[in-house]
Structure formats: C-alpha cells, structure tokens
C-alpha cells in the first residue's frame, strides 16, 4: 500500500504559533486530514493543517528527517 508521510501542524488558539505536533501515513490528502484530526485530538485546536513531508524543504541542514524525505522522493 503506497502511503506518504504527512506532517501535522496546529495552532492552539488565536495569536499562537503554528507548531509541529506529529505526523501520519496516508495514501492521499483527504485521508491524511481525517487521520491527523482523529489522531492528534488531545487539544481543541483552533487550527490544524497537514503538509506532505516531501514538500517541506530543508534550508540549512544536510541531515535529519526532512532531508531524508527529499532523498526518498526521487525514486
């Protein structure tokens, strides 16, 4: 089953920063949204969004998860 990693970002309430809270595996954007909403349900988030990890572009590091995601997106 071909699934991609989606990173989950949330804002607790108005005026807060958007923060990274975790990630889920999903085969498309729609299911990723549902999985994120039901998995990270610990707070009553003011805002939540998901980003496919390959779309997070590392700026200064040459190692770490986001670099690996770039590498794996080439196959």
């Amino acid at each position, binding site marked *: 089953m071909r699934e991609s990693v989606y990173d989950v970002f949330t804002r607790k309430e108005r005026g807060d920063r958007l923060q990274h*809270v975790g990630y889920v595996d999903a*085969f498309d954007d729609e299911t990723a949204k549902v999985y994120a909403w039901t998995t990270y349900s610990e707070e009553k988030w003011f805002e939540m969004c998901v980003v496919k990890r390959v779309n997070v572009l590392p700026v200064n590091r040459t*190692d770490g998860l986001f670099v690996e995601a770039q590498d794996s997106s080439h196959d």
Partner: protein
Amino acid sequence: MSQLTDEELMRKVQGGYMVEGPEDMTEGYRKALRVQLTVQADTELMSAPSYWMAARHAPSTNTQVSAHAIIQDELAHANIAYRLLEDIGESKERLVYGRQPYEFKHPYGFDQPLDNWAELVVATGFFDRAGITLLSDVHENTSYAPLKRALVKIGMEETFHLRHGEVWMRRLAKAGGEARELVQRAVDWMFPMTIEWFGLPDDMKRHSGQLDFKLKGLTNDQLRQVWMASTVPLCEELGLDAPAHWDEDKSEYVLDYPFPCQYDAVEKHWAFDEGEISWDAVFERWKKRGPMNEIYVESVQRSRLDVQRWLTA
C-alpha cells in the same frame, strides 16, 4: 550515525544533550532506544484489542463511548511510537503487520481476556496507571527529543484514562452487590499482574543501557513504588482489598504475598499459597504468552494484507 563512542554519548546526554535523530546516535544508543520504543508501541497497540473485547459489551451507550475514546487514544499512541521507530530505521509495516503474535513485546497483562465492564474499568485504573508511571518517567528524563515531544500528548490523554478508571471503580464499589464483587475480583488478579509488569527487581536487573543513555530515570523497583503510592491508597479509600501496605519502618510499600508467584490464566488466579517462584519461571510463563495473544494480534492484522493485495494488484 554519530562518530562518538557509546561512553562519549552517555557523558553528553548526562550533561543535558538532546538527541534529535539517527544522525546523533551511536549504535548502542539506537539499540537501547529501539528496545524501549518497541515495548512502548506494542503495549499501546495490544491494549486496544484487550479493551475493545470488553468495550463491546459495556453496559450503555455512554460507557461504550468512553471506552472507545480510550481505544482511540491507545491506537494513536501506538502509531506515534511505531512512527518514531520508523524514524530510527525500523519498519512500521513489519513491526505491526509482519510479526508473529509471540514476537510482540507487550506485557503479559495484555495477553489476558477482559471479561466485563468492571475488568475494563480496573484495567484503565491499574494498567494505564502503570503505563503513565513508566511514560512520565521517560518524559521527564529522556534524552531523545522526538519522544519527549510526543509524550506531551500521550501524558494528557492517559490522565483521562486514569480518571475514568478511578471514577468508575468508585461508582461500582459504591453500588455494592454484584458490581462491587466484580471490581474486587478484577483487583485480585490485576493488582499482582501490574506489579509483575514492572519487571525484575533492581538487585537482579541486567544492564540495558537505558539509564546510562538517559532513556529513563527511575529503576524498576522505584517505578513499582510510584505505582503503589497512588494505587494502594485508592483501593483503601474504596474499601477494596489490595495485597500491599505501607511499611513505616522501611518507609515504602511492601507486598503481602510472595513475589513473584505463579499465575493460572484460565482461573485468573495467583497461587499465593504455593509460595515464591524464580524469575526464570516467570519468564517462561511470559514466553508462552497468555490465552488471548494470538486472537488480539490477529484482530489487529486481519485486513491489512487483503487491502494491500487489492491496492497493488
């Protein structure tokens, strides 16, 4: 992988260094973390079928709802731990769907059937408290930053499970009659089950590196004490018999039965009267797994392979 030696990394983490990913780890650190995360993930995952079997027959819509809220959390926590394992080079796919039932590393308690609502309630009161005792220690002390961050969510939700367990233990104990009897019977087998869960006593414990690498902070015996410090008073308050008491002289909780001892999984009965057994005998029992092991694992794995076959055809 880090160029440091295990000893150098140990010194660094003891000094407050936080590990962010495989690039910061030594092989020794990665192995110790892998073992710890696998136990954590498998425990959360196998609690789900165990709770679910009892949840299906919970006495009302509301109780079925609260039980499913707990199951939802446990599955989410398991998923988070498997994802963390994937980040350090393990395969979530293989761990969840590619292992045989006996290969899972969860405690023996989650190989047992929960037969009624009272047992589910005491499980959330006792087992989840054991879980939170272990994870709070990890949260406070771990040198692995991604795990520390993930545990914020897990801690928040497990406290709900605890309150659920407590509130319902209180309600059923207060109701008297059959309800009270069933709670007491659940306490009778689940209290020693949780005590055993914390593992070998400190004076027998093999060296695992988890303390040196700061993957946890407290020893098995200390964790057992933390668990009893909240569980024993709760039972006393509710007038439920728990086989342990506070010892003024030793200034710690002591067990009122031979530990470890043998367990009859069919009768759900601890053989207190047969006396203390060796830890080797305990390991042997654990290795054989409990009565629900295969059923629980199968229930989690059942449709993945079919659906995968469909989608790649």
